[in-house]
């Protein structure tokens, strides 16, 4: 036995050295993979990611549809001319239409005829009823150049001078309601997302604590041989990052498939009352490419959050183990 210098060997057997079998070499991971209850964690993260992706996707669909409605409605002005005893309504309608045509920013005018105006009342009064004797108001729909700010007070006073019984509606109240509904949907979506993320963090923290508890003897031995907390945490964290990404990709992938098929599913229901209501609310039900990108980023983020939550728990647990 010899020790020649600080870097020499403690014992040297020369030619008497036995062969090292391949099985004996450093092939075993320091933290055994099967000691971390990975499958349950992958399922939990996948479910959380799926719920988060469905929430985000729905919020994106509703906001896109609401933005479309808003831009459509915002560029439309409706003038209602009510009949009055000694006024000629046809003349009033024509005069109002001319006045609107002269207004800068208005690109299209469509005065509804008496029959067309009457038809608008059919859903409420039923068909086959003669409306000749009723004072049915006449509607004129004008479409403004998108992005143009119309001088509505001037237009309103000019129309009232021409036809005192006319009223101008720029759908401001409707747009405000749409805005608040979209805002509420977004807030609800963010609330659900926050809950899902908190639930993911709690699940991951419990799983990490469980894994650390099961592997406590390994942690103690690593401390004995001089491994620092960072080294030990790094060995565990790799597993959790892998499990988090796996769960995130499964959940996110399933949600993307669900949105991919949703257009076909919406097609099966088209023509039915439910289908039409959904189509009115959410349009074609198809997510834009940017929406899929958001879902992919979200899935990766949930994987990263899993790794972060496990790292936080790892250091807290390592502090308890001397």
């Amino acid at each position: 036995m010899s020790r020649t210098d600080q870097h020499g060997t403690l014992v040297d057997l020369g030619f008497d050295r036995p062969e090292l079998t391949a099985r004996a070499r450093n092939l075993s991971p320091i933290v055994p993979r099967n000691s971390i209850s990975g499958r349950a964690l992958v399922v939990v993260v996948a479910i959380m990611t799926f719920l988060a992706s469905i929430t985000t996707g729905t919020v994106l669909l509703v906001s896109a549809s609401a933005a479309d409605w808003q831009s459509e409605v915002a560029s439309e002005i409706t003038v209602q001319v009510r009949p009055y005893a000694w006024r000629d309504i046809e003349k009033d309608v024509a005069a109002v239409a001319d006045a609107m045509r002269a207004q800068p920013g208005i690109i299209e005018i469509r005065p509804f005829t008496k029959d067309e105006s009457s038809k608008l009342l059919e859903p409420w009064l039923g068909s086959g009823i003669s409306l000749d004797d009723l004072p049915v108001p006449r509607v004129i729909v004008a479409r403004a150049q998108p992005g143009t700010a119309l001088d509505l007070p001037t237009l309103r006073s000019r129309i009232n001078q021409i036809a005192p019984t006319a009223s101008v509606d720029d759908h401001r109240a409707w747009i405000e309601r749409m805005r608040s509904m979209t805002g509420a949907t977004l807030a609800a979506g963010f609330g659900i997302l926050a809950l899902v993320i908190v639930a993911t963090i709690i699940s991951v923290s419990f799983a990490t604590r469980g894994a650390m508890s099961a592997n406590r003897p390994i942690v103690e031995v690593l401390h004995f041989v001089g491994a620092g907390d960072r080294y030990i945490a790094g060995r565990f964290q790799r597993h959790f990052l892998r499990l988090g990404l796996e769960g995130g990709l499964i959940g996110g992938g399933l949600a993307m498939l669900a949105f991919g098929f949703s257009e076909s599913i919406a097609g099966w229901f088209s023509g039915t009352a439910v289908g039409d209501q959904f189509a009115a609310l959410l349009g074609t039900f198809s997510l834009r490419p940017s929406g899929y990108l958001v879902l992919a980023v979200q899935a990766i983020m949930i994987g990263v959050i899993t790794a972060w939550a496990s790292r936080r728990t790892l250091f807290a647990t390592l502090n308890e183990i001397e």
Partner: protein
Amino acid sequence: MVRFENVGLRYGLGPEILRDLTFQIPANSFQFLTGPSGAGKTSLLKLLFLSMRPTRGLVNLFGHDVSLLNKEEVADLRKRIGIVLQDFRLLEHMTTYENVALPFRVLGRDESSYRKEVIDLLKWVGLGERMDALPPILSGGEKQRAAIARAVISRPQLLLADEPTGNVDPTLGRRLLRLLIELNRSGTAVIIATHDISLMDQYEARRLVLHQGRLHIYE
């Protein structure tokens, strides 16, 4: 290398199990730590290994006041200490070779740089044919030898051994003691905690005797 001044240790609100310990462990020294069961030998080894902090007094290790060290600094100091515990603490999913090579692996060294050294040491402690065996199939004596090999492989500056020959026959016990003496000759300070008087009789060395929580030193 190690300096204790008026060190006391108690668990919780219980009585002091180590009282007013004042001693030094010089570099390159060899000593036996002995005393009756429950005298506090293992607790003293834990204080020396920094896995416990004293309730009072000063512990200075390699020039550092241990009360001022953070966890990473403790880990760095532990790289200079080898420890053999009575329950061996081998990693059951790793082969004997991997267990013994663990200190090098933690240091981030390439396997080819220490393979020869680990194989030679395993052969020396009689585990040359058991390199690919997992600890659950090793006998108590084999586990003990593997634990000793792991503690000495990185040639620590201080080696702490708790009953290192407790599970082996006298012949192998002598062989292991020789390994520890050789390690000491190559520059490592060695502290062997033992009840075994015949082991202590085999080598003339300083004796630290713990009795009723106090330390008596026989040079």
